[in-house]
């Protein structure tokens, strides 16, 4: 089963990359972009086929390694979700 982990800087945490991208968009004439936050996407190919167990596994991976919850939020998406 495929899982995707979306990781973003928390609100209130300065995101200089997002700010730089927002400024660049403004320079290119894309007005009306109120905020840009840049995060990362991690794709995992899991042996586990049971969605609940897969989600629990990825949850544990996030809290132990993939995300730092002092500065980041994360959201887990399983392929199962889109069916």
């Amino acid at each position, binding site marked *: 089963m495929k899982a995707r982990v979306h990781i973003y*800087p928390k609100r*209130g*945490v*300065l995101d*200089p*990359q997002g700010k*730089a991208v927002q400024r660049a968009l403004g320079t290119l004439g894309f007005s009306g972009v109120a905020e840009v936050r840049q995060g990362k996407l991690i794709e995992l190919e899991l042996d586990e086929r049971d969605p609940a167990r897969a989600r629990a596994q990825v949850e544990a991976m996030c809290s*132990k*390694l*993939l995300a*730092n919850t*002092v*500065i980041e939020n994360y959201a887990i998406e399983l392929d199962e979700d889109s069916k």
Partner: protein
Amino acid sequence: MKAAVIVFPGSNCDRDVKVALEAAESRVAMVWHGDAELPGVDLIVLPGGFAHGDYLRCGAMAAHSPVMAEVKAQAQRGVPVLGICNGFQVLCEAGLLPGALLPNAGLKFVCRDVQVAVETSQSVFTNAYEAGQVLRIPVAHHDGQYYADDDDLARLEDLGQIAFRYVDGPAPGAGNPNGSAHDIAGVFNEGKTVLGLMPHPERAADPMHGGSDGCGLFLGLVRALG
């Protein structure tokens, strides 16, 4: 005093800190990150560098290296732990220090001397300095912006856990180089037995380096820990 310097794949200041410790008359053991055991030591040092290539987040993977379980156990028993630059990032990722280090506010790698004020002389790390003393020490980092939420920052201030602060003013190198909250350059744990700092005292530990303001940290440790 006997110190252990932990060597991660990608550490590049491990030998520099060994030289600085030996100049202060400490014995030094180099310990590979994959070792599950640590020799009995008076001080553990996590050196600067780019452990595991800074992949995912700086220090994230190093915080789970086999040796870190023993580092945490000894830290809990009160063995002093010093993390410099990448070592500071590892200590935050390992939960031995509060907060985290974000990319520099200016998005650039900063490599220059900075001016930092010593906030307290009441620790094994800073006893050779005076509170308020200003040191000139180099920084070299891309992810040195110290962040903690408002509650944690208030607690750090209240409990005197801020070790070093970037100093404003006209002196060369003055100012906050990376956007760190409260101008924080280094923090202690609550017991002041764990210190993480972004500046590199081992790179200002000999007149040949162009400055020796970092020597006091190593001399103070040897003085405090025998």
